[in-house]
């Protein structure tokens, strides 16, 4: 039987093309996944605040600033007056504190860049997690080691459900029996 051009195209060219397309898609998909999920996102903040210095070296409790994390859906970014509790006297001549003081005196809010975000149609509740003993670091990473805050874990529905389904596996440091998180839609979407 004579080999035709068509045979060549079907047997060699087509599988080859499909293979190339699939491989490149797979590589791009997996390599780009963290970036799509925002992992590693660490934009420059308006005031160069270091979590390593405050939460790590000085061991200030997270809740000194993120006050409503045990009370409300939102952990909240502190208002400028919370910073000024100390910085009215501490390190007032450092250039970053000068910036901070200026915001405070002008009565302007500080436009902090948002790092961690879930979509508007998902209603994550900080209080429900924190009061049940889930550590901030489980989602936010160890901020005590970060000079510039960045996203460590992905914040997709899959990541939420991984933990809701197998909390013990995801949070091995937690002792005692852990209840699974809810998996019904209305727990997060309403």
């Amino acid at each position, binding site marked *: 039987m004579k080999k035709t051009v068509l045979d060549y195209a079907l047997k060699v060219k087509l599988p080859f093309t499909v293979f190339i397309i699939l491989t490149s898609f797979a590589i791009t998909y997996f390599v780009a996944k963290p970036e799509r999920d925002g992992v590693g996102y660490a934009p420059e903040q308006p005031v160069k605040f270091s979590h390593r210095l405050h939460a790590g070296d000085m061991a200030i409790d997270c809740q000194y600033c993120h006050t409503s994390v045990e009370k409300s859906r939102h952990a909240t970014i502190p208002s400028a007056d919370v910073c000024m509790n100390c910085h009215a006297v501490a390190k007032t001549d450092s250039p970053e504190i000068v910036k901070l003081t200026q915001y405070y005196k002008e009565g302007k*809010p500080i436009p902090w860049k948002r790092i961690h975000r879930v979509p508007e149609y998902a209603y994550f*509740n900080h209080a429900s997690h924190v009061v049940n003993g889930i550590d901030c670091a489980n989602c936010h990473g160890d901020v005590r080691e970060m000079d510039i805050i960045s996203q460590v874990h992905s914040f997709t529905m899959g990541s939420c459900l991984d933990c809701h389904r197998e909390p013990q596996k995801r949070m091995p440091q937690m002792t005692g029996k852990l209840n699974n998180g809810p998996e019904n839609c209305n727990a997060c*979407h309403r």
Partner: protein
Amino acid sequence: MDNNATKPRFWKSLNLLANKPESIESTRHEFRKGVTDDFDLNALPDKSRRKFLAVLGASAAFAATACTDYPDKGEIISYNKKPSGVIYGHANYYASSLNSGLGILIKTREGRPIKVDGNPQHPINQGKVDAIAQAAMLDLYDPGRVRYPVKKSDSNLLLHKDDMPKTDWERIDKDITEKLKAASQSGKEIAIVAHSVKSPSQEKLFNEFVLKYPTAKFYTYEVFGNQNKLNAWEKCYGNKNLSVIAWDKADVIIALECDFLGTEGITVEQIKKYTSRRDFDNAKSFNKLYTVEANYSLTGANSDYRLKLSPEYQYDFIMALINEIAVKKAQSAVNLDDSAMTKIRQYNLSDFASKFGLHADKLATMVDDILHHPTKTLVVCGNSLPEECHIAVNLLNEVLGSVSNVYSDKYEVLHRPTNTMADFAQLSAKMKSGNVGVLIHFDSNPAYHLPHEIGYTDALKNVETIVSMIHIENESSEGSHFILPVNHEFESWGDFMLRNGVLSTQQPVIAPIFDSRQKEAVLLNWMSEDYTKYNHDIYHQFMKAHWQEKVFPAANTFSSFDEFWYSCLHDGIFTWDELSIPRAIINVASISLTQNTLSKSGFTVILTKPHYLGDGQYANNGWLQEVPHPITKVVWDNCAMMSPATAKKLDVAYGLDKLDKISDMIDLTVNGKTLRLPIMPQPGIVDDVIAVDLGYGRTRGGEVGTGVGFDAYTLMNKSGNKIYTGASVAKAGESYELISSQEHHSLDEEFVKDFHYKRHIIQEYTVPFYVEFENKLEEAKSRLKNEFGDDREAYEKALKTEKTHLLGHHEYQSHSVYPDKEYPGVKWAMAIDMNKCTACNACVTACNVENNIPIVGKEECGKGREMHWMRIDTYFSGTPEEPITSVQPMLCQHCDNAPCENVCPVVATTHSPEGLNQMTYNRCVGTRYCANNCPYKVRRYNFFDFRNDFKDGYYRMDTLELLNNPEVTVRSRGVMEKCTFCTQRIEEARSAANIKGKKIQGSDVVTACQEACPSDAIMFGDMNDPNSKVSKLRNHSLGYHVLETIMVKPNVTYISRLRNTNMEDTHSGH
């Protein structure tokens, strides 16, 4: 035991009753005709604008995606200095008052009001507010509000508001104070037109203004006031202290053309008190409501017996009733002198009844009831009836001797009597002759409200300076020289005293959104020595001073004034015991029983108060425009309501006789003025009576309100009366698209005409039947106990069978194809008590506000695309002449075997472990299969992004974003939605319980509709908790599920309505 013939037949509309094929055809379709017409791409020309835009949009989107910094997640803006008491994500509640004087609690999130409900501590409205107040939130954020003060020069008097030059307040204050001074020096009148005064501080301000500017004169009016009632009261009792009615104390209520459950008086209080005597657990103490009326009002629809009577004969009827009771039966608590007796004797009830065709049996029952409970019978007379009717009613109540029972010891405080139409005619004359120097519209709209015969609008041209203090441009501000924006009630200070011993406070919960000022503060500033020293606090200080002087001493407290003041503001209310003034004794001799001033000729026109538009001032509120009229279900319009027989006589029709939703127009001529408007045949209206809602047809009512409906104020003559005889009607030969939602989302199908009754959608019994049933059930219980002894299961089963038989239902066996699912924790359920629901629509509006439900507009409503998650279904039974109305709030039933769930191809609607039927918007692709499969027709589809679609994005403008409830997703185009049982409130309660280390309880959650319901007809909770109200009602003999037999296992229980009628008067379910 099948005796269907005796059972009531329900019907939804006249066309369906008459088996009109078009009507039946239209109920067959889930989505109405025309839904997909405008999406036919092939019908579009090749180079359509739409296609071009689609391509342009797509390429722009690609370009944008390619070029953006897509990882950027925006910013988080925190406070600079966080106010104490604010927790991000938590609501704060503030007690305040509406301008109507009712107490409210305003829910604010991060400083913006998002929801309003009644203040539970307020003694008058007791934690409830009506639909209008619920929707007031939209008025606050209405983008059409006047945003800054404007001074118009002669050249720009008629400019549209967008073109108006901005002026600063200081310049305006300077100009106006100069004009005021000039007017008072030259002796010209300064006329201020305001609504009736309910506030003591405002009254003080008015008096002080007159001291400063001696030529100032205040004119107050109220379109739907109670002037006739008040005048009659004064003539009978010699004072103006109108007693407040204790609605819960009357056993028999006779309402004469009085819509106390719908539009007259403080309806929320009246509904609450009236329905408190409709407790099915205490069926023997049910009150009995008779209505005698011409228009088919909401009160008439809720009554046990309704007699039809044209308003001209009401006076004769009352007098005949007095004759029947005082003379014939010789039962009178007061001595009637000879002259009164002579007059009364002229009226004879039985003659009257036969002459005007009153239903003899109903009338006999009524007289019988009165004679049995004379001291507990309350007769009330509608505000629109003339003074002599009110006098006769006062006399009738005295004759019955019920006044000490049915009137409370509180009286309505009259701060300042409203002016008569004659006063306004005089004002017009003065304006015309140039004797009015400055005219101030104090948040009022006389050019629209006053009868045109008075000539107010023409007279405006001769006034040198007109100042309009307004929210939204209106008819009176047209041609004004100064337009001053005023604060909304949520941005204002105030105090209100509706009754003696009850003072409620009003405090701002948000700083003025626009460059507006409080209207009282504006006057106060013009009175001050230096108007440049204005600040937003001046009226607050003025009010505080008044309280310190007048109210604080009455408090008789040891605390300081500041403490007292803050506690009053915190509570929103201050009450004190005042030595009650004993009600004056009626002086029968001095009452002049006059003749009837109305006489029948031609057609009778009744101008009624619209249910949701106030006197027309809420015309720009889309939510209120879209709430269906509770009787006709007409949205976005008013119409001439008439009986089907009258419509036939006039050869006019509505709806499917012709094309879908098309109504014939008539020319209605009264007092020499003609109005062309569409008609609606409404069963139950007296023949030759035409009822028209006022408050529509605004010519300058804002972007939304302008041009909606027809202005019936034009029909009034200078008396300002609401009832006119001698009208003539001609068929106009024109037709009009009138939208009534009555046939939308119908649960019926063409081949089961008696669907409602066969499927037990409405189940009703009479009180005597139910009392007998309870006795029989007790007997059966003891009998079965003996029979079965300890075998609990067999006993329960036998009892259930017994109950079914006693109620006259068929027992049915049906099995679900699904296995029963376990709900180990909380299971959410709702119960709706139909004995208490009056169809006031407060729940519907509260749901709209709570759940960010968009406004779709008239055109989309016509296609059946209204988005309300909750609706009130109306079913009629009886004949078109004597209809009996049954209402039923309908919302997602959260079925255990939800038919919507298993048809969703993308699993966007699922079941929660707590029995909620969940809707996940971000998963929905819009197949609409679920809506098609829903037997209750409660799913709503976003055919558009309605906020963009309605009026070119009117409700998409800047301020409206502040309105949204942040706990509920704002849905976009192509997504299905429906009632969630307020899942956001459940989750909030769960989180709160979690923080306290507890499990969520059924009693932790109150849904928005439940919170709003004035009669507490809606109950919500955990049906797994045997002590909860819902679980008890679920197993109650009167509890039933709609469409029970299709085994979808709904979680909403309806409690059968008991009608307090005699057993033979139909409506028994057996």
